[in-house]
């Protein structure tokens, strides 16, 4: 097992008003267990505010959990000494959604891509050759013409390629892709997905692929985890999730996703959820989904369901 997270919680305390002393707690993440095997691509899906990005950041140690542990190749990353953690860090990387924001506008591509090598003391020998190879690898070619350019001289798709090159520079074992293709046009999105797949296979990278778009994870991932309001509601392999979803929220998500085929979408019955996702400050009592669930009954309003094994899947719902 590459990554194993147990009982992860992340709460943020906020002040109610500027002058008020009253504190309120945002339950960004409320007890999540995740296991990711080597060479596996895991998709993490859910709507905004469900805690999926928080999970991504916790798993690579960018933020500290309120409670819970994260083990990376057997060692607890929040217990490690600083220099030990730094050593492990080169094996975990992240690609963010917005390449405009994640690349420093005042640094050239050469500077951006040599940073990982410098930080991890790997900057010996022919750095220029390494960076040129890296650029060619992510499809920015001819690389020598682009190496001294600044981010604003690239298109959105090319910038994301640079961000991918940076993340894969040290051939990490584990990469978190946080909505890495959401900001891209569809033809570019397909190119970037192909690139990540190809490089992932080549270097044996394990991906945690965070997305709100189910059609993207359908083609890219082996295993899917569905989150709602800081908890996992269902997790299973990709085929099972799309052919026989169990949790009402998963069903609603699938039913809500538009399908690019006019014959399959017209006139079909859909599950339409009413209302918005509740605030993570005031989490509903009982099952978190009960306020929007079309099947909710008394027990759902009283007792919170736990994630249980059901056939091929794990699901947190009183219906099962």
């Amino acid at each position, binding site marked *: 097992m590459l990554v194993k997270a147990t009982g992860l919680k992340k709460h943020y305390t906020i002040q109610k008003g500027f002058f008020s002393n009253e504190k309120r707690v945002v339950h960004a993440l409320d007890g999540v267990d995740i296991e990711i095997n080597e060479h596996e691509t895991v998709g993490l899906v859910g709507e*905004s505010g469900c805690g999926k990005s928080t999970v991504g950041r916790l798993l690579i140690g960018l933020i500290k959990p309120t409670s819970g542990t994260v083990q990376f190749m057997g060692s607890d990353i929040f217990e490690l000494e600083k220099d030990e953690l730094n050593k492990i860090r080169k094996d975990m990387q992240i690609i963010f959604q917005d390449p405009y924001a994640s690349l420093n506008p005042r640094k050239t591509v050469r500077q951006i891509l040599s940073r990982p090598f410098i930080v991890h003391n790997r900057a010996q020998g022919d750095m220029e050759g390494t960076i040129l190879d890296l650029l060619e690898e992510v499809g920015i070619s001819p690389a020598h013409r682009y190496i001294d350019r600044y981010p604003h001289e690239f298109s959105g798709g090319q910038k994301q390629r640079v961000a991918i090159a940076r993340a894969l520079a040290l051939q990490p074992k584990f990469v978190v892709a946080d909505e890495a293709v959401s900001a891209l046009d569809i*033809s570019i999105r397909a190119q970037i*997905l192909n690139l990540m797949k190809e490089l992932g296979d080549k270097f044996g990278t394990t991906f945690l692929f965070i997305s709100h778009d189910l059609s993207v994870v359908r083609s890219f991932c082996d295993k899917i985890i569905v989150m709602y309001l800081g908890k996992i509601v269902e997790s299973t392999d990709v085929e099972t999730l799309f052919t026989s979803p169990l949790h009402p929220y998963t069903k609603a998500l699938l039913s*809500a996703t*538009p399908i690019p*085929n006019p014959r399959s979408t017209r006139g079909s019955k*859909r599950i339409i959820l009413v209302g*918005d996702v509740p605030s993570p400050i005031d989490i509903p009592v009982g099952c978190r989904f009960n306020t929007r669930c079309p099947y909710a009954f008394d027990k759902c309003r009283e007792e919170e369901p736990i994630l249980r094994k059901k056939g091929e899947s794990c699901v947190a719902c009183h219906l099962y």
Partner: protein
Amino acid sequence: MESTQGNELLSVKNLKTYFYLSQGQVKAVDGIDLSIPRQKAVGLVGESGCGKSATALSIVRLLPSPPSKILDGKVLFKGKDLLKLSEKELREIRGKEISIVFQDPMTFLNPVLKIGDQIGETILEHQPVKKGEVKRKIVELLEHVGIPGAQDVVEYYPHQLSGGMRQRVLIAMALSCNPSLVIMDEPTTALDVTIQRQILELIKRLIEDSDMSLMLITHDLGVVAEICDYIYIMYAGRIVEHADVYTIFEAARHPYTRGLLASALSIEEHREELVGLDGSVPDLMAPPSGCKFHPRCSNAKDVCWEEEPPLVQLESSHFVRCWLER
């Protein structure tokens, strides 16, 4: 669209909108013809930077000039050429007969005005409604677009509403004067999946229940497949293919349309490898010679480099701009 000639609400003929920037000239909309029949939903599809929004904004003359300039063309709406109207005459139509819903509701709602006042402004501008009746009308509209507790929402400021609710407010505002044409520019792109579904269902219901037409601008093929009757595919300022929704999805002929369809992911199938399009949308400041799509086209012949293909008719309602179809 021969069959719908008599039933035409809006018809755009040879529309050209160029931007004059310090770096050069951008041919954002370069000779576009399109037609929107009554009570139909028409989709304008393409990637960012291909001129979709510029087309929509040119139709209602909302682009700032300079830097933009509408050089040529006609926009016939109920027989009147919108490009020839005076600003005053145009204001009678804009917001009343033609209204627009934009992608990002936060940018288009005034943050310091109450929701009720913002919708009321549109109504008072265009309709002979008494001040006292306006509030009742606003509440009705908000209820019509599915906003719970409409009585209270009237008194809210935009920041007190969620993204989906703000989009509903914009739609309510667009509907306030019973327009015959609503232009929606990426109305659900900024929303979450389940909220997007609510808005899509609302749009579908509105098209069915009223006699308005819809022009939907989007890059999401899933959304057009569901909502639109007829689709225009736009690339680098030009229409490259147009046909009814089934023809586009099942018998598209232009390599760009096919590439878009091949790039579109669906929850219905697992695709091992995506065969999409290489390269990216060209810089409109220095567009390619000949067919604008030839640098990305795998079947490009010599003629594609040299000369731009004309839009040819394949069937009664299927047109394509490609040399391979000659």
